[in-house]
């Protein structure tokens, strides 16, 4: 079993509109097992397109024009994601790679209880489980993310934003995937709730050993949570390094510009960086 979980080579995505947009351009990176990789950049830099493209979640007019994505399963198999057929892809998704979507607060079905939505995951992906086993598993998940099993009969609108986000994390965790892709998972939450959720993600990562691709434009937050950070600009990764290196010794001018566009909480004062 190698150290790498995901190898992305020469990956490109084009939006086939007029004029065509090269949203992701010849991206190479390797994601390590158990690592949190931060993906940062401005709106429109291609970070979400890259994360969706890896899992083949893109729809037309997006076209993957080049590259390969190899998933190094813990069983020892190397899975080339682009070679999976429809049924294999259906089984692969959520089982190996799950996702916490942007605006997860609105990603839950408003007319179904959270318990039944979590139950769905097992019913589809683990057809051998009995109803009682599924119920146990749902309660366990809600306990793990500290929402509490007794809340399984609640509807999404009966939960706070932070709790809904925890339910989304529980859902992503359900099948014990090896990779979780998180797209701006805390952007709509206030700082205290955000901090609790980040702690929880970090603790779950240690407990279950999954890797995380964490997408956000909040660089100060990313610096604290990530092991390594990839900075994206106009579809390309301009710099990929450990969080500490990015902070202490950024190499690319664009990374420096991004870092300087945040007012420091405790550092030198003044609105700045014109």
């Amino acid at each position, binding site marked *: 079993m190698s150290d790498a979980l995901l190898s992305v080579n020469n990956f490109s995505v084009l939006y086939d509109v007029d004029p065509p947009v090269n949203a992701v351009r010849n991206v190479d990176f390797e994601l390590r097992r158990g690592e*949190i990789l931060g993906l940062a950049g401005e709106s429109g830099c291609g970070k979400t397109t890259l994360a969706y493209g890896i899992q083949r979640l893109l729809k037309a007019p997006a076209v993957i024009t080049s590259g390969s994505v190899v998933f190094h399963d813990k069983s020892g198999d190397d899975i080339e994601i682009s070679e999976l057929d429809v049924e294999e892809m259906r089984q692969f998704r959520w089982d190996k790679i799950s996702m916490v979507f942007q605006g997860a607060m609105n990603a839950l079905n408003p007319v179904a209880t959270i318990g039944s939505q979590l139950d769905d995951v097992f019913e589809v992906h683990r057809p051998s489980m009995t109803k009682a086993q599924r119920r146990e598993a749902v309660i366990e998940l809600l306990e793990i993310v500290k929402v509490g099993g007794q809340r399984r009969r609640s509807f999404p609108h009966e939960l706070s934003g932070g709790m809904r986000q925890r339910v989304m994390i529980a859902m992503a965790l359900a099948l014990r995937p090896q990779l979780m892709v998180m797209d701006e998972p805390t952007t709509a939450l206030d*700082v205290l709730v*955000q901090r609790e959720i980040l702690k929880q993600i970090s603790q779950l990562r*240690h407990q279950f050993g999954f890797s995380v691709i964490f997408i956000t*434009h909040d660089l100060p937050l990313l610096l604290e949570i*990530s092991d390594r950070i990839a900075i994206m600009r106009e579809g390309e990764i301009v710099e990929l390094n450990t969080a500490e290196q990015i902070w202490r010794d950024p190499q690319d001018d664009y990374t420096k510009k991004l870092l300087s566009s945040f007012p420091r909480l405790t550092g030198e004062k003044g609105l*700045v960086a014109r």
Partner: protein
Amino acid sequence: MSLLEFDAVTKVYSVRGAGQIKALDDVSFTLESGQTIGLVGQSGSGKSTTAKILTQLETPTSGEVRLDGRAIPRHGSGLRAYRQQLRMVFQDPFASLNPYHSVRHHIERPLRLDNVVPQEQINGEVRRLLGRVRLDPASIADRRPHELSGGQRQRVAIARALASRPKFLVADEPVSMLDVSIRLGVLNLLADLQREEGLGVLYITHDLATARHFSSEIIVLNQGRIAERGTADDVILRPKHPYTQELRAASPDPEKFFASTSGIGGGAR
């Protein structure tokens, strides 16, 4: 010099099934023209209720708001005259502009409604206001909101707020929906306008870092009460109240993080 007084304001909401909720509990502060106060706190702390009462979208259960010593009229032309003095910049520039109307229309309306300038000067005034927010009038004035970026839209919203030549601005999370790389630009613009026009600004946010850089004074709200207040550096760098300390500890702070490397996630590195 103008003075806005928020005097012992309490606001109680009756919520079906949950009884009565005290959104604000005996909150007092004053805002002078030329001064910037940061109002910080987490969701539900009463920040937006304060903004709604200041703009008279809600009436206080007890206490009152005064402008230059006079209580704010509840309705009619007196209320309109008050609102001409105090304008609001909302969080979401995608929702606060009407998608059917041009930028020009958005800025003309307050000019006409409040008779700020004579009819023949309206065009020139629209150009001047767009220039004030660093937008090019020739290319922007006849566009509609969907043709603009988020940062441009928020600049239009600021120009609209300035049209009636107010003395006070209430800015409720004005940059939180914008991309990080343009947030500073919009905040710098607000800071410049505040200085140049001598505006009193209430900056509502849960982002302690920008509150510190943008405000001279900070008020921390917790469950409808003022937990702490003081100069921006005192409150953020030397917080006394446990709630402020908690907020501060929860805010990302790479400087401190890499100095200690014992924060969350640090164990794996």
